[in-house]
C-alpha cells in the first residue's frame, strides 16, 4: 500500500502540527507542574524544595475542605449544564427548524452579542441585580413578594454561570439541529410515528452530539472558573480554582498542582461517561 494512503500517515500528517504545538509548550509545562506536586516548599522563602513526597495528595483526602470544594464545584457545574441545556434546546430548535429567515437572523445575533460585552461587566451587573437593595428585590417588592436573599451565595453563582455560558450551549445545539434533514422527520411521520415519538427517537439522538459539545463547554468552563465565585459568591463559595489561586498566592505551588489534578480527573470521567452514552457515535 502506498505510504500516503495508509491511514496512519494521514492521521500523523494532520495531527503533527497541533500535537507538536501542544506538546512543546503546553504539555511539557503541565508535566513540570505535575512533577512539582510531589515536592515541598520552604515555608519562609516559599522556594520549591526537591524533596519527594506524596503529602500533597494525602492532604487532599485527609482535609475535608478539598472534598467539600470539589463537590460544590462539580455540583454547580452539573447544575449549570443542566439549566443551560434546558434553556438552549428549545431555543436552538426554534432557530433551526421553526423560525423564518429574519427571525432566525435576529435570534442568532441576539444570542451571540452578549458574548462580546465582557464577562466581568456581566458578572458585575448581576451583582447589582441580586444585591439586597438591588433590582430583583425591588421588583419583587413592587409585586408584593418577599425579597429573595440570593445575592452573594451559591445560588447567585449558579445563576450567573448559567447566564454567562448560555450562548456556548445554544450555538452547537443549533448547529446540530440545523443539520438534521427534513426528510428524516417526514420519513418518521410516514412510518406512523407521532410528533413526540419522532422527536424522541429521531431528532433527539441526532442532536445529541451538539448537546454534548455544548455541555463540555458549560461544564468545563464552570469547573475551572474562579472569578465569578470570587466576585459574586458568598462566605462559602470557594471553587477549585479559588483554592488553587490562594495556594499559589501563598507560594504553595506543589499543593496547588496536586489539587489541580482533581478537575482533570473529573473531566476524564465526564468524557468517559459521554462516550459510554454513545454520544460520540451518532448513527
Amino acid at each position: 500500500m502506498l505510504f500516503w494512503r495508509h491511514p496512519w500517515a494521514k492521521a500523523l500528517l494532520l495531527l503533527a502540527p497541533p500535537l507538536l504545538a501542544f506538546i512543546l509548550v503546553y504539555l511539557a509545562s503541565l508535566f513540570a507542574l505535575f512533577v512539582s506536586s510531589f515536592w515541598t516548599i520552604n515555608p519562609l522563602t516559599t522556594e520549591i524544595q526537591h524533596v519527594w513526597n506524596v503529602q500533597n495528595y494525602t492532604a487532599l483526602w485527609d482535609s475535608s475542605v478539598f472534598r467539600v470544594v470539589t463537590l460544590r464545584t462539580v455540583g454547580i457545574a452539573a447544575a449549570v449544564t443542566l439549566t443551560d441545556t434546558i434553556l438552549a434546546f428549545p431555543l436552538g430548535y426554534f432557530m433551526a427548524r421553526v423560525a423564518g429567515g429574519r427571525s432566525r437572523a435576529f435570534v442568532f445575533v441576539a444570542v451571540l452579542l452578549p458574548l462580546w460585552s465582557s464577562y466581568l461587566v456581566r458578572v458585575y451587573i448581576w451583582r447589582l441585580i441580586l444585591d439586597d437593595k438591588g433590582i430583583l428585590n425591588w421588583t419583587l417588592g413592587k409585586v408584593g413578594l418577599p425579597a429573595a436573599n440570593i445575592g452573594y451565595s451559591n445560588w447567585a453563582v449558579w445563576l450567573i454561570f448559567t447566564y454567562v455560558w448560555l450562548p456556548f450551549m445554544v450555538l452547537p445545539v443549533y448547529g446540530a439541529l440545523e443539520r438534521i434533514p427534513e426528510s428524516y422527520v417526514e420519513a418518521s411521520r410516514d412510518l406512523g410515528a407521532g410528533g413526540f415519538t419522532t422527536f424522541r427517537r429521531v431528532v433527539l439522538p441526532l442532536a445529541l452530539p451538539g448537546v454534548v459539545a455544548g455541555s463540555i463547554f458549560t461544564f468545563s468552563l464552570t469547573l475551572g472558573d474562579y472569578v465569578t465565585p470570587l466576585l459574586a459568591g458568598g462566605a462559602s463559595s470557594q471553587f477549585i480554582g479559588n483554592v488553587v489561586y490562594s495556594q499559589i498566592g501563598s507560594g504553595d505551588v506543589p499543593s496547588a498542582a496536586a489539587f489541580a489534578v482533581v478537575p482533570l480527573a473529573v473531566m476524564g470521567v465526564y468524557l468517559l461517561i459521554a462516550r459510554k452514552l454513545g454520544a460520540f457515535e451518532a448513527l
Partner: protein
Amino acid sequence: MEQRSTRIGLAVWSTLVVLFLWIPLALIILYAFNKSNVQSWPIPAFTTHWFRAAWTSEVRTSLWLSVRVGLIATGIALVLGSAAAFGVARFRFFGREAVSFLLVLPIALPGIVTGIALNAAFVAGNINLSLWTIVVGHATFCVVIVYNNVLARLRRSSPSLIEASQDLGADGWQTFRFVIWPVLSTALVAGGLLAFALSFDEVIVTTFTAGAQNTIPLLILGYIRLGQQLPVVNVIAFAMIVLTAIPVLLAQRLMRDTGVLRRSAGNVTEAVESAQITAV
C-alpha cells in the same frame, strides 16, 4: 412540520430566553450613564461624562491588543482545531482517545493552572511576556472550541462524502468548496466566533501570560478593583456590543448563505446516508 401549538410554545420560550440574555445587557447600557461611580439601584442621576472619560490612550492600547490577540489566536485555532478534529474523527489509530482527552485539557483544567504552567514554562525558557505569550495562552483553549464544534459536525456527517465526490471526478479544491465547506462552514464559523469571543474576554490565563500590558478584560478588572470610575467599564461594554453587531451580522449572513448550498449538499448527504441505512 410541528404542530402549531408547539411552534407557538417554542417562540414564546425563545422570546423569554432572549429577554433573559438581554435585560442585564440593557442594564449595563443604562449604567453607562450613571453619574455616581458606585453602582447602586436606582440610578441617582444621569450623565454622558463617562463616554468622554473612557476614550483614553490606555483604553485604545488595550483594545488594539485584545483585537490582535483574538484574531491571531482564532486563526491558529481554526487551522489546528479542524485539522485535529479531522484526524480524530476520520482515522482510527493508537492513542486516539488519549489525543481526544489531551485536546480538552485547556478547558478542563482551571484557567489558573494553564496560566501558571505556561508562566513557568516562559520563565524557564527565558521568554519575555508579550503579545505572543498571550496568544499562546489563548490558542490553547481556542483550539479546543473549534475542535469540539468541528468534531461534533464531522461525527454527524458521512466520511464517504469525500470519496463520493472524488469518484464523481472533483479535484481537491472542488471537493473542499462543494462538499467539505458546506458541511463544515457552520461549525467553523460558530467555532471561530466562540473562540474569538472567549479570547477577547479571557482574564485568568491572560493575567499570567500578559506581563505588564493590559488586554481589555485586564483593564476592566483594574477599573473594577479601583472602583473609582466604574461606569467607564459599562461604556466599554456598551461600545463592544455596538461594534461587534456588524461582524456578528456578517457571520450570520455567511451561515445562512451556505444554508442554500447546504440544501443541495444535503441532498447528496441524504442519498448517501439512506444508502448506508439500507445497506445496514
